[in-house]
Protein backbone atom coordinates (compact mmCIF):
# COMPACT_ATOMS: atom_id res chain seq x y z
CA UNK A 1 0.00 0.00 0.00
CA UNK A 2 1.53 3.31 -1.01
CA UNK A 3 1.98 6.14 1.46
CA UNK A 4 -0.34 8.32 -0.65
CA UNK A 5 -3.14 5.75 -0.35
CA UNK A 6 -2.69 5.53 3.43
CA UNK A 7 -2.62 9.33 3.54
CA UNK A 8 -5.84 9.63 1.54
CA UNK A 9 -7.66 7.21 3.83
CA UNK A 10 -6.30 9.01 6.90
CA UNK A 11 -7.34 12.41 5.49
CA UNK A 12 -10.83 11.05 4.65
CA UNK A 13 -11.23 9.62 8.17
CA UNK A 14 -10.20 12.93 9.73
CA UNK A 15 -12.50 14.87 7.37
CA UNK A 16 -15.49 12.67 8.25
CA UNK A 17 -14.62 12.86 11.95
CA UNK A 18 -14.74 16.67 11.85
CA UNK A 19 -17.95 16.66 9.79
CA UNK A 20 -19.56 14.33 12.36
CA UNK A 21 -19.85 17.39 14.64
CA UNK A 22 -22.65 18.65 12.38
CA UNK A 23 -24.79 15.87 13.86
CA UNK A 24 -23.66 16.50 17.45
CA UNK A 25 -20.59 16.53 19.66
CA UNK A 26 -19.11 13.02 19.74
CA UNK A 27 -15.89 11.20 20.72
CA UNK A 28 -14.74 10.87 17.10
CA UNK A 29 -14.93 14.65 16.59
CA UNK A 30 -13.20 15.34 19.90
CA UNK A 31 -10.38 12.95 18.99
CA UNK A 32 -9.89 14.65 15.59
CA UNK A 33 -10.08 18.07 17.25
CA UNK A 34 -7.31 17.19 19.73
CA UNK A 35 -5.16 15.72 16.97
CA UNK A 36 -5.68 18.97 15.02
CA UNK A 37 -4.56 21.12 17.96
CA UNK A 38 -1.49 18.93 18.60
CA UNK A 39 -0.39 18.82 14.97
CA UNK A 40 -1.01 22.54 14.42
CA UNK A 41 1.05 23.48 17.49
CA UNK A 42 3.90 21.21 16.39
CA UNK A 43 3.74 22.57 12.84
CA UNK A 44 3.77 26.19 14.07
CA UNK A 45 6.93 25.56 16.11
CA UNK A 46 8.77 23.85 13.24
CA UNK A 47 7.63 26.59 10.83
CA UNK A 48 8.79 29.43 13.11
CA UNK A 49 12.18 27.82 13.71
CA UNK A 50 12.73 26.77 10.10
CA UNK A 51 11.83 30.14 8.59
CA UNK A 52 12.69 32.64 11.33
CA UNK A 53 14.94 31.53 14.15
CA UNK A 54 17.34 29.23 12.29
CA UNK A 55 18.02 31.43 9.23
CA UNK A 56 17.97 34.74 11.12
CA UNK A 57 19.93 33.60 14.16
CA UNK A 58 22.00 30.48 13.53
CA UNK A 59 22.72 30.80 9.79
CA UNK A 60 23.20 34.55 10.00
CA UNK A 61 25.67 34.08 12.89
CA UNK A 62 27.63 31.50 10.88
CA UNK A 63 27.70 33.65 7.73
CA UNK A 64 28.86 36.81 9.54
CA UNK A 65 31.44 34.87 11.53
CA UNK A 66 32.74 33.30 8.29
CA UNK A 67 32.99 36.76 6.72
CA UNK A 68 34.80 38.00 9.86
CA UNK A 69 32.04 40.54 10.38
CA UNK A 70 32.26 40.16 14.14
CA UNK A 71 29.93 43.03 15.08
CA UNK A 72 27.07 41.64 12.98
CA UNK A 73 27.74 38.12 14.30
CA UNK A 74 27.99 38.89 18.01
CA UNK A 75 25.15 41.41 18.11
CA UNK A 76 22.88 38.40 17.47
CA UNK A 77 23.59 37.37 21.05
CA UNK A 78 21.09 40.08 22.11
CA UNK A 79 17.99 38.52 20.45
CA UNK A 80 19.21 35.06 21.48
CA UNK A 81 19.42 36.14 25.12
CA UNK A 82 16.05 37.89 24.89
CA UNK A 83 14.56 34.69 23.42
CA UNK A 84 15.99 32.56 26.24
CA UNK A 85 14.75 35.17 28.75
CA UNK A 86 11.26 34.74 27.29
CA UNK A 87 11.43 31.00 28.10
CA UNK A 88 12.07 31.82 31.77
CA UNK A 89 8.41 32.78 32.04
CA UNK A 90 7.76 29.09 32.78
CA UNK A 91 9.88 29.26 35.96
CA UNK A 92 7.86 31.11 38.65
CA UNK A 93 10.88 32.59 40.48
CA UNK A 94 12.40 33.91 37.25
CA UNK A 95 9.22 35.08 35.54
CA UNK A 96 10.23 38.74 36.00
CA UNK A 97 13.14 38.27 33.53
CA UNK A 98 10.63 37.64 30.73
CA UNK A 99 9.46 41.26 31.15
CA UNK A 100 12.61 42.36 29.28
CA UNK A 101 11.91 40.56 25.97
CA UNK A 102 8.23 41.43 26.31
CA UNK A 103 9.16 45.10 26.79
CA UNK A 104 11.44 44.96 23.77
CA UNK A 105 8.71 43.53 21.51
CA UNK A 106 6.13 45.98 22.95
CA UNK A 107 8.59 48.81 22.24
CA UNK A 108 8.95 47.66 18.61
CA UNK A 109 5.16 47.45 18.30
CA UNK A 110 4.65 50.90 19.83
CA UNK A 111 7.40 52.56 17.77
CA UNK A 112 6.25 51.05 14.50
CA UNK A 113 2.60 51.47 15.51
CA UNK A 114 3.10 55.19 15.85
CA UNK A 115 5.10 55.80 12.68
CA UNK A 116 3.70 53.11 10.40
CA UNK A 117 0.09 53.83 11.38
CA UNK A 118 0.45 57.53 10.55
CA UNK A 119 2.58 57.24 7.43
CA UNK A 120 1.39 53.93 6.05
CA UNK A 121 -2.29 53.97 6.84
CA UNK A 122 -3.82 57.08 8.37
CA UNK A 123 -2.47 59.72 5.97
CA UNK A 124 -3.02 57.69 2.74
CA UNK A 125 -6.59 56.94 3.82
CA UNK A 126 -7.29 60.62 4.57
CA UNK A 127 -5.67 61.72 1.28
CA UNK A 128 -7.80 59.26 -0.68
CA UNK A 129 -10.95 60.46 1.07
CA UNK A 130 -10.27 64.11 0.20
CA UNK A 131 -11.54 63.90 -3.37
CA UNK A 132 -13.14 66.72 -5.34
CA UNK A 133 -16.92 66.62 -5.11
CA UNK A 134 -17.41 66.15 -8.84
CA UNK A 135 -19.68 63.12 -8.64
CA UNK A 136 -22.14 61.47 -6.29
CA UNK A 137 -19.78 58.61 -5.41
CA UNK A 138 -17.17 60.97 -3.95
CA UNK A 139 -19.88 62.63 -1.86
CA UNK A 140 -21.04 59.21 -0.62
CA UNK A 141 -17.44 58.40 0.40
CA UNK A 142 -17.24 61.66 2.42
CA UNK A 143 -20.55 61.00 4.12
CA UNK A 144 -19.67 57.34 4.76
CA UNK A 145 -16.29 58.07 6.35
CA UNK A 146 -17.57 60.95 8.53
CA UNK A 147 -20.72 59.15 9.71
CA UNK A 148 -18.82 55.91 10.42
CA UNK A 149 -16.26 57.82 12.48
CA UNK A 150 -19.10 59.58 14.32
CA UNK A 151 -20.69 56.21 15.12
CA UNK A 152 -17.45 55.13 16.84
CA UNK A 153 -17.10 58.43 18.71
CA UNK A 154 -18.24 57.57 22.20
CA UNK A 155 -17.05 60.66 24.07
CA UNK A 156 -20.39 62.28 23.36
CA UNK A 157 -23.82 60.74 23.82
CA UNK A 158 -25.48 59.69 20.53
CA UNK A 159 -28.36 62.17 20.78
CA UNK A 160 -29.60 64.98 18.53
CA UNK A 161 -27.36 65.70 15.53
CA UNK A 162 -24.66 63.26 16.70
CA UNK A 163 -27.31 60.55 17.00
CA UNK A 164 -28.68 61.22 13.51
CA UNK A 165 -25.21 61.19 11.96
CA UNK A 166 -24.33 58.01 13.88
CA UNK A 167 -27.50 56.33 12.62
CA UNK A 168 -26.48 57.12 9.03
CA UNK A 169 -23.09 55.61 9.94
CA UNK A 170 -24.82 52.35 10.89
CA UNK A 171 -26.17 52.08 7.33
CA UNK A 172 -22.65 52.21 5.91
CA UNK A 173 -21.27 49.88 8.58
CA UNK A 174 -24.00 47.32 7.91
CA UNK A 175 -23.32 47.39 4.16
CA UNK A 176 -19.60 46.85 4.89
CA UNK A 177 -20.35 44.00 7.30
CA UNK A 178 -22.76 42.48 4.78
CA UNK A 179 -20.10 42.55 2.07
CA UNK A 180 -17.53 40.98 4.42
CA UNK A 181 -20.13 38.42 5.46
CA UNK A 182 -20.82 37.57 1.81
CA UNK A 183 -17.12 37.03 1.13
CA UNK A 184 -16.74 34.93 4.29
CA UNK A 185 -19.67 32.71 3.31
CA UNK A 186 -18.21 32.28 -0.17
CA UNK A 187 -14.79 31.34 1.22
CA UNK A 188 -16.28 28.79 3.61
CA UNK A 189 -18.56 27.29 0.94
CA UNK A 190 -15.63 27.02 -1.43
CA UNK A 191 -13.70 25.12 1.28
CA UNK A 192 -16.75 22.89 1.79
CA UNK A 193 -16.90 22.12 -1.94
CA UNK A 194 -13.17 21.36 -1.79
CA UNK A 195 -13.69 18.85 1.01
CA UNK A 196 -16.61 17.17 -0.82
CA UNK A 197 -14.51 17.04 -3.97
CA UNK A 198 -11.74 15.36 -1.99
CA UNK A 199 -14.16 12.81 -0.52
CA UNK A 200 -15.97 12.00 -3.78
CA UNK A 201 -13.04 12.36 -6.17
CA UNK A 202 -9.80 11.54 -4.38
CA UNK A 203 -11.10 9.12 -1.80
CA UNK A 204 -14.17 7.50 -3.37
CA UNK A 205 -13.75 8.08 -7.10
CA UNK A 206 -17.44 8.81 -7.73
CA UNK A 207 -16.84 12.14 -9.54
CA UNK A 208 -14.59 12.20 -12.61
Amino acid at each position, binding site marked *: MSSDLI*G*TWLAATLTLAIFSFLYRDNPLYRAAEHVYVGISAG*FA*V*IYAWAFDVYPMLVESFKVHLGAKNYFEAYILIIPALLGVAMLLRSIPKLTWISRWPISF*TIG*IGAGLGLIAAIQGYLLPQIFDTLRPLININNAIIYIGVITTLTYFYFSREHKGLTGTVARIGIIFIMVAFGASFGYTVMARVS*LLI*GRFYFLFHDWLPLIR
Partner: protein
Amino acid sequence: MLYRTGPLILVFGTALLLIIAFFIPHKPFGDLEARFLNWYAIISGFTFLLGLDSLARHHLIKIVRREKGWFYSLLLVTSLFGTLFWGLYSWIRYASPFALNAPFMWLYKFMIIPLQATMFATLAFFIFSAAYRAFRVRNLAATLLLIAACMVMLGNVPIGSSIWAGISWLIHQIFPNTNLEILKRWELFAAAKDWLMAIPQAAAGRGIGIGLALGGIAMSLRIILGIERTYLSS
Protein backbone atom coordinates in the same frame (compact mmCIF):
# COMPACT_ATOMS: atom_id res chain seq x y z
CA MET B 1 15.14 48.73 38.51
CA LEU B 2 15.24 45.22 37.04
CA TYR B 3 11.58 44.48 37.72
CA ARG B 4 9.76 47.60 36.48
CA THR B 5 11.88 50.64 35.64
CA GLY B 6 14.31 48.77 33.38
CA PRO B 7 11.58 47.26 31.17
CA LEU B 8 9.85 50.66 31.00
CA ILE B 9 13.11 52.33 29.87
CA LEU B 10 13.60 49.52 27.33
CA VAL B 11 10.14 50.13 25.84
CA PHE B 12 10.78 53.88 25.66
CA GLY B 13 14.27 53.44 24.18
CA THR B 14 13.25 50.86 21.57
CA ALA B 15 10.28 52.91 20.38
CA LEU B 16 12.33 56.13 20.39
CA LEU B 17 15.11 54.51 18.33
CA LEU B 18 12.54 53.36 15.75
CA ILE B 19 11.04 56.84 15.56
CA ILE B 20 14.52 58.38 15.15
CA ALA B 21 15.32 55.75 12.48
CA PHE B 22 12.25 56.89 10.54
CA PHE B 23 13.32 60.53 10.51
CA ILE B 24 17.06 59.86 10.11
CA PRO B 25 17.37 56.98 7.63
CA HIS B 26 21.18 57.00 7.76
CA LYS B 27 23.85 55.20 9.77
CA PRO B 28 23.67 54.17 12.58
CA PHE B 29 19.84 54.31 12.51
CA GLY B 30 19.21 53.40 8.85
CA ASP B 31 18.93 49.62 9.18
CA LEU B 32 17.54 49.65 12.70
CA GLU B 33 13.95 48.92 11.70
CA ALA B 34 14.90 45.83 9.66
CA ARG B 35 17.28 44.65 12.40
CA PHE B 36 14.66 45.06 15.13
CA LEU B 37 12.05 43.27 13.03
CA ASN B 38 14.48 40.33 12.59
CA TRP B 39 15.05 40.24 16.33
CA TYR B 40 11.29 40.39 16.86
CA ALA B 41 10.89 37.31 14.63
CA ILE B 42 13.64 35.49 16.56
CA ILE B 43 12.02 36.24 19.92
CA SER B 44 8.64 35.16 18.49
CA GLY B 45 10.21 31.80 17.62
CA PHE B 46 11.12 31.35 21.28
CA THR B 47 7.60 32.28 22.39
CA PHE B 48 6.33 29.35 20.31
CA LEU B 49 8.41 27.11 22.57
CA LEU B 50 6.79 28.77 25.56
CA GLY B 51 3.34 27.98 24.13
CA LEU B 52 4.45 24.42 23.42
CA ASP B 53 5.60 24.01 27.03
CA SER B 54 2.31 25.37 28.35
CA LEU B 55 0.18 23.14 26.09
CA ALA B 56 2.21 19.98 26.73
CA ARG B 57 2.35 20.59 30.49
CA HIS B 58 -1.42 21.14 30.75
CA HIS B 59 -2.23 17.92 28.89
CA LEU B 60 0.51 15.82 30.49
CA ILE B 61 -0.88 16.72 33.92
CA LYS B 62 -4.34 15.58 32.74
CA ILE B 63 -2.87 12.27 31.54
CA VAL B 64 -0.87 11.62 34.72
CA ARG B 65 -3.86 12.42 36.96
CA ARG B 66 -6.22 10.43 34.71
CA GLU B 67 -8.62 13.40 34.64
CA LYS B 68 -11.80 13.37 32.55
CA GLY B 69 -10.92 13.31 28.85
CA TRP B 70 -7.31 12.19 29.48
CA PHE B 71 -7.41 9.98 26.40
CA TYR B 72 -7.97 13.03 24.19
CA SER B 73 -5.03 14.71 25.91
CA LEU B 74 -2.95 11.63 25.11
CA LEU B 75 -3.93 11.98 21.44
CA LEU B 76 -2.98 15.66 21.51
CA VAL B 77 0.40 15.07 23.14
CA THR B 78 1.16 12.16 20.79
CA SER B 79 0.29 14.20 17.69
CA LEU B 80 2.23 17.20 19.04
CA PHE B 81 5.44 15.31 19.72
CA GLY B 82 4.93 13.14 16.64
CA THR B 83 4.81 16.28 14.47
CA LEU B 84 7.89 17.70 16.20
CA PHE B 85 9.73 14.41 15.75
CA TRP B 86 8.93 14.13 12.01
CA GLY B 87 9.72 17.82 11.57
CA LEU B 88 13.16 17.49 13.15
CA TYR B 89 13.80 14.17 11.40
CA SER B 90 12.93 15.72 8.01
CA TRP B 91 15.09 18.73 8.82
CA ILE B 92 18.13 16.55 9.54
CA ARG B 93 17.52 13.93 6.83
CA TYR B 94 16.31 16.19 3.98
CA ALA B 95 18.01 19.49 4.95
CA SER B 96 14.60 21.15 5.31
CA PRO B 97 11.37 19.98 6.96
CA PHE B 98 9.56 21.43 3.96
CA ALA B 99 11.34 19.30 1.35
CA LEU B 100 8.60 17.88 -0.88
CA ASN B 101 9.47 14.22 -0.23
CA ALA B 102 10.00 14.68 3.53
CA PRO B 103 7.70 12.87 5.99
CA PHE B 104 6.84 16.23 7.53
CA MET B 105 5.28 17.33 4.26
CA TRP B 106 3.30 14.08 4.19
CA LEU B 107 1.87 15.08 7.57
CA TYR B 108 1.15 18.52 6.19
CA LYS B 109 -0.59 17.20 3.07
CA PHE B 110 -2.62 14.40 4.59
CA MET B 111 -3.34 15.65 8.10
CA ILE B 112 -2.91 19.41 8.55
CA ILE B 113 -4.56 20.52 5.28
CA PRO B 114 -7.63 18.21 5.58
CA LEU B 115 -8.12 19.01 9.28
CA GLN B 116 -7.78 22.75 8.79
CA ALA B 117 -9.89 22.93 5.62
CA THR B 118 -12.65 20.75 7.12
CA MET B 119 -12.67 22.74 10.36
CA PHE B 120 -13.21 25.97 8.39
CA ALA B 121 -15.64 24.31 5.95
CA THR B 122 -17.79 23.24 8.93
CA LEU B 123 -18.14 26.92 9.76
CA ALA B 124 -20.15 27.32 6.54
CA PHE B 125 -23.08 25.57 8.26
CA PHE B 126 -22.81 27.68 11.40
CA ILE B 127 -22.48 30.87 9.40
CA PHE B 128 -25.75 30.04 7.60
CA SER B 129 -27.41 29.39 10.94
CA ALA B 130 -26.08 32.72 12.30
CA ALA B 131 -27.26 34.51 9.14
CA TYR B 132 -30.75 33.07 9.53
CA ARG B 133 -30.91 34.34 13.14
CA ALA B 134 -29.56 37.77 12.15
CA PHE B 135 -31.98 38.19 9.28
CA ARG B 136 -34.97 37.21 11.44
CA VAL B 137 -34.50 40.42 13.42
CA ARG B 138 -36.15 42.24 10.48
CA ASN B 139 -34.89 45.78 10.96
CA LEU B 140 -33.17 48.18 8.57
CA ALA B 141 -29.67 47.16 9.65
CA ALA B 142 -30.35 43.42 9.17
CA THR B 143 -31.98 44.08 5.79
CA LEU B 144 -28.98 46.11 4.58
CA LEU B 145 -26.64 43.37 5.76
CA LEU B 146 -28.71 40.77 3.89
CA ILE B 147 -28.88 42.80 0.66
CA ALA B 148 -25.14 43.59 0.68
CA ALA B 149 -24.24 39.95 1.42
CA CYS B 150 -26.56 38.64 -1.33
CA MET B 151 -25.28 41.15 -3.89
CA VAL B 152 -21.65 40.27 -3.14
CA MET B 153 -22.35 36.56 -3.41
CA LEU B 154 -24.49 36.78 -6.56
CA GLY B 155 -22.04 39.22 -8.15
CA ASN B 156 -19.16 36.79 -7.69
CA VAL B 157 -20.61 33.49 -8.85
CA PRO B 158 -21.77 32.34 -12.32
CA ILE B 159 -25.29 31.64 -11.08
CA GLY B 160 -25.65 35.42 -10.52
CA SER B 161 -25.21 35.99 -14.27
CA SER B 162 -27.69 33.22 -15.06
CA ILE B 163 -30.30 34.70 -12.70
CA TRP B 164 -29.78 38.14 -14.26
CA ALA B 165 -30.16 36.64 -17.76
CA GLY B 166 -33.53 35.21 -16.63
CA ILE B 167 -34.61 38.55 -15.14
CA SER B 168 -33.55 40.34 -18.37
CA TRP B 169 -35.68 37.94 -20.42
CA LEU B 170 -38.63 38.60 -18.08
CA ILE B 171 -38.20 42.38 -18.41
CA HIS B 172 -38.02 41.97 -22.18
CA GLN B 173 -41.27 40.00 -22.17
CA ILE B 174 -43.04 42.68 -20.11
CA PHE B 175 -41.50 45.61 -22.05
CA PRO B 176 -40.88 44.34 -25.61
CA ASN B 177 -39.28 47.65 -26.63
CA THR B 178 -36.21 46.96 -24.44
CA ASN B 179 -33.08 45.51 -26.03
CA LEU B 180 -32.50 42.06 -24.51
CA GLU B 181 -28.79 41.93 -25.40
CA ILE B 182 -28.08 45.29 -23.73
CA LEU B 183 -30.08 44.24 -20.67
CA LYS B 184 -28.13 40.97 -20.40
CA ARG B 185 -24.80 42.77 -20.73
CA TRP B 186 -25.69 45.12 -17.91
CA GLU B 187 -25.04 42.33 -15.30
CA LEU B 188 -26.89 43.99 -12.41
CA PHE B 189 -25.50 41.78 -9.63
CA ALA B 190 -21.86 42.15 -10.69
CA ALA B 191 -22.30 45.92 -11.18
CA ALA B 192 -24.04 46.27 -7.80
CA LYS B 193 -21.30 44.24 -6.13
CA ASP B 194 -18.56 46.40 -7.70
CA TRP B 195 -20.30 49.59 -6.60
CA LEU B 196 -20.95 48.30 -3.07
CA MET B 197 -17.31 47.32 -2.66
CA ALA B 198 -15.89 50.51 -4.19
CA ILE B 199 -18.10 53.11 -2.51
CA PRO B 200 -20.14 52.34 0.65
CA GLN B 201 -18.01 49.42 1.78
CA ALA B 202 -14.80 51.37 1.16
CA ALA B 203 -16.20 54.39 3.01
CA ALA B 204 -17.20 52.37 6.07
CA GLY B 205 -13.96 50.37 5.96
CA ARG B 206 -12.02 53.61 5.78
CA GLY B 207 -13.96 55.07 8.72
CA ILE B 208 -13.32 51.95 10.80
CA GLY B 209 -9.65 51.89 9.69
CA ILE B 210 -9.06 55.54 10.56
CA GLY B 211 -10.64 54.94 13.97
CA LEU B 212 -8.43 51.91 14.52
CA ALA B 213 -5.32 53.80 13.45
CA LEU B 214 -6.12 56.70 15.81
CA GLY B 215 -6.71 54.21 18.63
CA GLY B 216 -3.42 52.47 17.81
CA ILE B 217 -1.53 55.75 17.84
CA ALA B 218 -3.05 56.74 21.18
CA MET B 219 -2.20 53.33 22.65
CA SER B 220 1.37 53.50 21.28
CA LEU B 221 1.84 56.90 22.91
CA ARG B 222 0.47 55.60 26.22
CA ILE B 223 2.88 52.66 26.10
CA ILE B 224 5.91 54.76 25.12
CA LEU B 225 5.22 57.30 27.86
CA GLY B 226 4.74 54.54 30.43
CA ILE B 227 1.08 55.34 31.15
CA GLU B 228 -0.01 51.91 29.95
CA ARG B 229 1.85 49.25 31.97
CA THR B 230 -0.45 46.23 31.95
CA TYR B 231 2.12 44.22 29.97
CA LEU B 232 4.39 44.30 33.03
CA SER B 233 1.95 42.30 35.16
CA SER B 234 2.92 38.65 35.33
